[in-house]
């Protein structure tokens, strides 16, 4: 996947935003992740040239933090909360069901059609709504295992706006 020139320019622009920061790496990567959805090696090389850190170090940072991803995520990111409050109310069964319905092996995986990525989240802070999950920014409160197939079907069939 070649990085388009426009993307390259934009990445350089992002790097320049933080020119006066002593250690801008995290901010640059956060911006890139937000804007492009992932931070592949080629992008890391551009950042490396701009801020003078070795690519291996940037790669180390990207793979350390779970918010940064090397691969593009699905159109819908399903985040199942596995915080303690949700866990004691059965969120493990929720995520198991989500994975089962989407035929995925583990959290972090994406479906082949690029529609869904499933993430395990550590507390989204909506503990009163436990167990919960998010699809992009929408929060689904007080879930039951039996709710899952229907919710996913709605997204699969395009009944929900992205």
């Amino acid at each position, binding site marked *: 996947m070649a990085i388009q020139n426009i993307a390259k320019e934009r990445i350089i622009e992002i790097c320049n935003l933080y020119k006066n920061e002593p250690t801008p790496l995290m901010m640059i990567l956060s911006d890139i992740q937000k804007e492009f959805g992932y931070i592949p090696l080629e992008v890391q090389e551009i950042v490396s040239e701009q801020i003078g850190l070795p*690519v291996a170090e940037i790669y180390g940072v990207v793979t350390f933090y779970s918010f940064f991803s090397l691969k593009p995520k699905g159109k819908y990111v399903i985040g199942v909360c596995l915080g303690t409050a949700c866990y004691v109310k059965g969120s493990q069964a929720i995520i198991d069901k989500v994975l089962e319905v989407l035929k995925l092996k583990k959290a972090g995986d994406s479906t082949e059609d690029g529609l869904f990525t499933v993430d395990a989240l550590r507390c989204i802070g909506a503990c009163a709504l436990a167990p919960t999950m998010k699809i992009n920014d929408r929060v689904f409160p007080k879930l039951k295992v039996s709710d899952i197939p229907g919710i996913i079907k709605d997204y699969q069939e395009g009944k929900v706006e992205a």
Partner: protein
Amino acid sequence: MEKKLLNIKIEGHPYQVEEGLTIMEAARKCGYDIPHLCTFENGLCSRGSCRVCLVEVTGARGLIASCVYPINEGIDIHINSQKALAARRTSVELLLSNHNKNCQQCIKNGNCELLLAAQMTGARDDMYQGEQTETTVDEIAPGIMRDTSKCVLCGRCVETCKALQGIGVLGFQKRGFKTIVGPADNRSFSESPCMQCGQCILVCPTGALLEKSEIEKVDEAFKAGKKVIVQTAPAVRATIAEEFGEKIGTTGTGKMVAALHRLGFHRVFDTNFAADLTIMEEGTELLNRIKNKGVLPQITSCSPGWINYMEYFYPDLIPNVSTCKSPHEMEGAIIKSYYAEKHNLKPEDIFVVSIMPCTAKKYEKTRKENAAVNNLPDVDAVLTVRELARMIKRAGINWQKLPEEEFDNDLLGKYSGAGVIFGTTGGVMEAALRTAKFILTGQEAGFLDFKEVRGQKNVKEAEFDLAGQKVKVAITSGMANAKPLLDDIRAGKSPYAFIEIMGCPGGCINGGGQPYVKPCFLPNEKDNIRDTYRKKRAAVLYSEDERQTVRQSHNNPDIKAIYKDFLGEPCGEKSHHLLHTSYNANRTRFPKK
């Protein structure tokens, strides 16, 4: 300034030690060796992460990593407390539970710091069992191998690559139990901007980083009945004896030659011959540049690690780099041309083995630019000093009982003292200076010892009068040291005419293929051996230089003969074909996969 003395206690005994030391250093001075893994070079790399050096300190919460904890007045240290003993043992047992324990076939066996720590802590076999971190084995790069199943995540290699070479090819990646060390994207060294210098191998405590062995390749050549000719680099004689338990700084030339003879090599040559050849070629190249207002400064090209670095990071400086092949490549090309011709041998039947202090030379020999005769590689196999020692041990040869023998005097046998000192930083420069005046004017230089260019300083500079012309030169080694000089050239403000750059800090005597200098395995060396070993090894070369009757390259009779009988003149057409090379300006740091 006098350092303040602090009163400390170890196991209840009072000691006085100077301020500023860690517990581990202080303990060593008082006669205690605390097991350790991640710490190295007193502070260059101390992550305090392996937890193998834990001790108990009265009043402190939890146990203390002695490698990073500074002593203070009145500190009361317990190395032998039951709690500390148990914790150190568990740390090692946990490391072993995620370690590929095929020790018997591991090349590092005998030099493995994890095994030593296991012995010292009394770690129990297979105490904890479970899943292993996903393993990556990189055997693609010609110089260096990486096997993450042996890695203990000490971080020494990461720090070394970054601090000494300024590159940072290696880094930690992922986190938690999945953490590994490797080049970005977990690639092979050959798909990353790695110069393959092997400095990482020298610091690795286990078998996670190793040279890629070519012993089998040499065996195959013998089996196939080839004429296997071996050459040894200048720096090998300064260190090979260490592999057999001799003290650092012991000359090994004669015994090494004797051993090579016993290993069945057809001829045993000294790369020094080619070093002399290099001086003739490179010196002529320099003077031509000065005369013809060519690109200056000229930079040496003997170190393939440096060449790799240059191609990756400073390809715009290619015009500055001497086109001379490195000496062993020259020697290989001469063996397959001149020597083959004289002896009526087919170049295809010759197999050239180079014994080198270097891992980058393993890569260098694979370059298509280094195949002068019939597209055959100039050199067929490169063995490090450590590999040679393994071959010698494998053959049952007892080093102590070996006689001293001479290199084979067969066309390429003679060498000058100038060639010998190629093995240490400043050596190439000194050798060149000894010959420069002669090339320029046909007259001998008045003196031979250019002491300004010797020593282990990061960057050395000097100014010389060459037949009325002032010439400024600089010498450096290790890429972190070289970088400012290179940036100056790039910016057009370098004051030098000639720069010697070696990839490894200190030059070849500290090459990535040299014997390990691990204080924990060197009970007969002084505590400060890490600070002195390079100087001791260099001293071996300088004293061999002094013992030579011929100490200038141009006065080596075999050099005179080869120019007369075969090459014609330095930098002439034949030289150009056999002894010079070209560089790649388009090397991608991370080639697309």
